[in-house]
């Protein structure tokens, strides 16, 4: 069974984002970048399926500028067998990314496509579901457990009220939630080996995809600041303030 994993290069989760002075966009010029944490979980899930003998090949794909090859190498150091870099603008919107990934799915014919549930920069939470629609595949989003048997994936999903288990017929799309697994770190020899693994570079034209722009970013802003708070000295003072000043308790 072949697995395709889609990974995105994003700002490191623990770095504070800054916006450009002219407010046209966020400023990533010298920011520390990393693989989107949910994508790391997706890669880990694929590697575990290969270790368990369920998967035979892992193809990792990323859409963006040449820099995304860093994340492809990172994923290959963790166990992916080869990479596909789809050359495009880093700011591409979800529907366009989904179209490019669909073309990759058409070409590779995997039994399973793993994606993160959400990119921590755009916080969109869309590409997996869109890809499922474009491929006409079933989708199991927000996965916290995956079991594969008899051409089916049985997936626990983290939903608002608790957990839901669904079974989807392969080929299928699964998006990963935080508690699916804890990604491993790459070992130095594996990082060296990953440098020799093949990466295919493709353009949207080569994939036969024409894109159009749907959304325009008008401006970005800092969220309104909260007014400064106070440190209270005791529980009594806290309760008094909540009652008499904030008037939020009776």
């Amino acid at each position: 069974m072949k697995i395709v994993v889609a990974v995105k290069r994003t700002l490191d989760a623990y770095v504070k984002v800054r916006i450009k002075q002219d407010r046209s966009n966020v400023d990533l010029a010298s920011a520390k970048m990393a693989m989107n944490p949910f994508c790391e979980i997706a890669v880990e899930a694929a590697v575990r399926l290969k270790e368990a003998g369920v998967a035979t090949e892992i193809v990792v794909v990323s859409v963006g500028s040449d820099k995304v090859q860093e994340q492809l190498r990172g994923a290959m150091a963790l166990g992916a067998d080869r990479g596909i870099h789809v050359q495009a603008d880093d700011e591409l919107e979800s529907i366009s990314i989904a179209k490019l990934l669909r073309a990759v799915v058409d070409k590779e014919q995997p039994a399973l496509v793993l994606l993160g549930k959400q990119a921590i920069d755009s916080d969109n939470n869309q590409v997996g579901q869109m890809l499922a629609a474009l491929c006409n595949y079933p989708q199991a989003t927000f996965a916290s457990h995956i079991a594969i048997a008899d051409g089916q994936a049985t997936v626990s999903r983290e939903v608002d009220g608790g957990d839901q288990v669904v079974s989807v017929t392969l080929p299928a799309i699964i998006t990963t939630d935080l508690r699916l697994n804890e990604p491993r770190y790459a070992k130095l020899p594996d990082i060296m080996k990953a440098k020799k693994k093949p990466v295919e570079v493709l353009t949207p034209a080569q994939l036969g995809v024409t894109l159009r722009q749907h959304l325009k970013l008008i401006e970005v802003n800092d969220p309104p600041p909260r007014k400064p708070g106070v440190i209270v000295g005791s529980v009594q003072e806290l309760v008094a303030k909540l009652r008499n000043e904030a008037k939020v308790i009776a």
Partner: protein
Amino acid sequence: MKVLIIAEHDNLVLKSATAHVVSAAHKLGNDIQILVAGHNCTAVAEQASHIEGVSRVLLADHASLVHQLAEAVAPVVMQHARGMTAILAAATTNGKNLLPRVAALLDVAQISEVISIIDASTFVRPIYAGNVLATVQSSDPVQVATVRASSFAQAATVAAPCAVEKVAPQTAQNQSRFVSASHNTSTRPELGSARVVISGGRGLGSAENFKLLDKLADKLGAAIGASRAAVDAGYVGNDLQVGQTGKIVAPELYIAVGISGAIQHLAGMKDSKVIVAINKDPEATIFQVADYGLVADLFVVLPELEAAL
């Protein structure tokens, strides 16, 4: 200008989030329709018909829709998408699961977690865990968006219902199948809509200790939330996680106990009206957003607080 709203419900009860989405819909059109897709869900359609400003409720009641799987519901939405200028749902796990699938079928973009609507094609939404607000303008003929319920008022209820129209869904699909669900059966208010939320973090130390928050929550009629660290450590279930990847809450009062205030947690609660933080570390980031901070050992002050209320 027609707007279609996908109802958030469990076949019995219409969730209040839908009434918040109706308020948002008013900024996009004047003919607001609610689609209730489910099974044996007539009561939900009835409840939806009493929301002020709704002109019609479409009831797609069919066994294949009972679990509201996206593969089954998306085609039903597509049956009614024609002529709509916007298709909206609450930014719940259901809404997030469904609407991108619908948008892709319509070959349009989807706009997630809208917190403000500037005009019929211009929206404000948080990115980077709410550290940046992006204003985006769409050139699509139909706006497909999920709406953050807490950012819009809840539409009122009216005595006279609008019409409920039964529609025949075309839903045959065998791609996905519901297996089981385990639901949190708490009697507390729902986290997303509670007036008061008390959240615990790793500082609570154990599942046993986490129960210390119960009595306080009882006294305040509060919902209970948690940080990711508390969920990961198994103190409480994942459905209580507040944050970038959990639930977004904006109650009147949010009390954070033993939570450090990582940006991913703040993303889920920093729009609360009043924030109280209890943490023994005076340097904890949570104090930067707290209106009232108490630097103390939670095990000492929680019993005191309970007694004082």
